[in-house]
């Protein structure tokens, strides 16, 4: 499916661009973190311990002032807490290890990002190819519907749609952790909560971009001689769509999909931040928790946010690389996240 010319172009652009290399490294690190989180994490990310709450990151000393009654008199007692390597990123207000939570949070972000993009690609490309290939009323109808969808910001539409899944069994499903199942690690959660409802929603609110771009491709490919030839040889519309139109419109779809993974991760973190995601193990959710402790424990809100930035920067760099290598004409126009 990938021609030699495309491969060469990708390689050439990759060797030329420092940014592409940085992007690849960042994405690989996040990906490996997500997969092997139970092996790397020092603690169970959901385990609470109130005597260990609000411990600062390793190397950071943090002083609290408390009023205590000593011998019947009120005194200010300063308590110094020093972060240690036992909790490299410190702990949150419930004493959960922030480093472990950041590692496991990568799973949520990547799964929702990739899953949501798959939903958007599946719906959007399907609709777009059919609209562009058949044209006429089908095209008009589908594209007017796309216009209506576009009248809503992705985040607002997603907020309105999460209600469909609220309280239902599909809002979140538990996926057993294969490593824990196989008995390779101890003391880690046995299953991972996958926010299925949220994944479908973030996919649905982003399908239009794929529909538009694949429609445009289908419109132009439809006019090509080889499509006309295939048709005159008696190939069915479905065969032509699958064998000719889809493969030839893949390039811009892949570039857009890469950027959309980043946009969807941002959208997921926003919805988790607002508490609408159905999972409590997510970078956005942790930022929301830390927001209440800004004046005292700055690390709870800060560190998970850095994880989001690193991940999204990595994916955007990969997106830039693919765009520069595959399609210089695509620059800049992509769907909205957040």
């Amino acid at each position, binding site marked *: 499916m990938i021609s030699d010319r495309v491969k060469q172009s990708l390689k050439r652009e990759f060797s030329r661009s420092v940014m592409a290399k940085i992007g690849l490294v960042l994405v690989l690190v996040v990906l490996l973190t997500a997969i092997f989180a139970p092996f790397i994490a020092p603690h169970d990310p959901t385990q609470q311990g109130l005597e260990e709450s609000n411990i600062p990151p390793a190397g950071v000393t943090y002083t609290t002032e408390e009023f205590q009654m000593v011998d019947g008199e009120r005194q200010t007692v300063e308590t110094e807490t020093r972060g240690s390597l036992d909790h490299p990123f410190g702990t949150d207000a419930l004493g959960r290890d922030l480093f472990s939570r950041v590692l496991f949070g990568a799973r949520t972000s990547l799964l929702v990002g990739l899953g949501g993009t798959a939903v958007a690609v599946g719906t959007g490309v399907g609709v777009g190819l059919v609209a562009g290939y058949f044209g006429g009323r089908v095209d008009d109808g589908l594209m*007017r*519907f796309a*216009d*209506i969808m*576009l*009248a*809503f*910001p*992705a*985040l*607002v539409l997603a*907020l*309105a*749609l*999460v*209600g*469909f899944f*609220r*309280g*239902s069994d599909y809002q979140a499903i538990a996926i057993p952790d294969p490593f824990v199942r196989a008995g390779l690690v101890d003391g880690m959660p046995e299953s991972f909560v996958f926010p299925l409802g949220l994944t479908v929603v973030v996919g649905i609110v982003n399908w239009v971009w794929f529909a538009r771009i694949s429609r445009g491709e289908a419109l132009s490919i439809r006019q090509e001689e080889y499509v006309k030839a295939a048709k005159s040889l008696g190939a069915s519309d479905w065969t032509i769509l699958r064998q000719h139109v889809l493969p030839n419109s893949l390039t811009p779809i892949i570039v857009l999909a890469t950027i959309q993974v*980043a946009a969807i991760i*941002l959208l997921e*973190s*926003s919805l988790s*931040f*607002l508490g*609408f995601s159905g999972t409590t193990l997510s970078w*956005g959710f942790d*930022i929301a928790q*830390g*927001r209440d402790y*800004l*004046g005292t424990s*700055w690390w709870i*809100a*800060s560190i998970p*946010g850095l994880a*989001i*930035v690193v991940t*999204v*920067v990595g994916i*955007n*760099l990969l997106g830039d690389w693919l765009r520069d290598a595959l399609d210089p004409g695509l*620059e*800049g*126009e992509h769907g*909205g*996240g*957040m």
Partner: protein
Amino acid sequence: MSQYQFILRRLLQGILVIWGVVTLVFLLRYMTPGNPVDFVAPLDAGQETRDQVAADLGLDQPVYVQYFDYLFGLIQGDMGYSFIRSQPASSIIFARLPATIELALAATIVAIIFSIPLGVISATRRHEPADYAATSFSLVGISTPNFWLGIMLILLVSVGLGILPTSRRPIGFVPAMEMFIFQLEIQGIRTWIAHMILPAVTLGTYFTAMIVRLTRSGMLDELGKSYVLATRAKGVPETLVRYKHVLRNTMIPIITVLGLQLGTLIGGAVITEFVFNWPGLGTLIINAIDVRDWPIIQGSLIVIGVGFVIINIAVDALYAKLNPKVSYE
């Protein structure tokens, strides 16, 4: 097709899309699980009361009757009553609108002030430190979740440095201006600005970053074209070449993309408002979704959708004015 026919056609299309928006929003409530009677009737209400509530809300009617009731209500400006507060949804929503519009405009102004110069510097000093700085900034800018940026600004600027307030909007722009004009009192405007800076920067950063990227790549494209060489050969000063010719041609695609990205601006405003406790449409929607106050959710969605359609028509018209090459099809 003349320019006016083009705009008229866009208007008619816009009305169709608005009708679609209303229909979609109606279906959304109809299809979302959960009976509104459960939220409106008292918890211990008997069947009789519940039936009465359902009748008051029109829920005992067939769905098409409910739909047309809602549609004709909307045409008369009636969005129903809030389930939680016994006020018309429309008056609650429109009371919140100015705060959101002010925030979105302020963010847009922040974005334009910072992005275009940065983009121009980046393109004209390619591969110099200034370019790397601007490119890195814009990359991080489009990759940062704005709610987190807002929280970090609160942490660093408000909590850390102790300047600028952390949240809320004690005074609107119009009352602040009235105070200044009628009482010559500057305090209102100062309060307004102090509370606006952090939210506007939070919301504006993503757009600043995005426009820097667009301006840079657009200008690099334009600078490579032969008319630039010809203009330089004529002896036109470089500054004039850059700002009068190249930048102007770069602006056309930027305006198109900005029109498309307006949704992102409003979506970003929703969450920025939440972070800064800003009393706009965004906090209203989030709270309404939390308590399933459907008339408010529906009304806000329609206001946003209609606003988006209208602004896009305006962008198209502006685009047609700016670019003589545009075909009115």
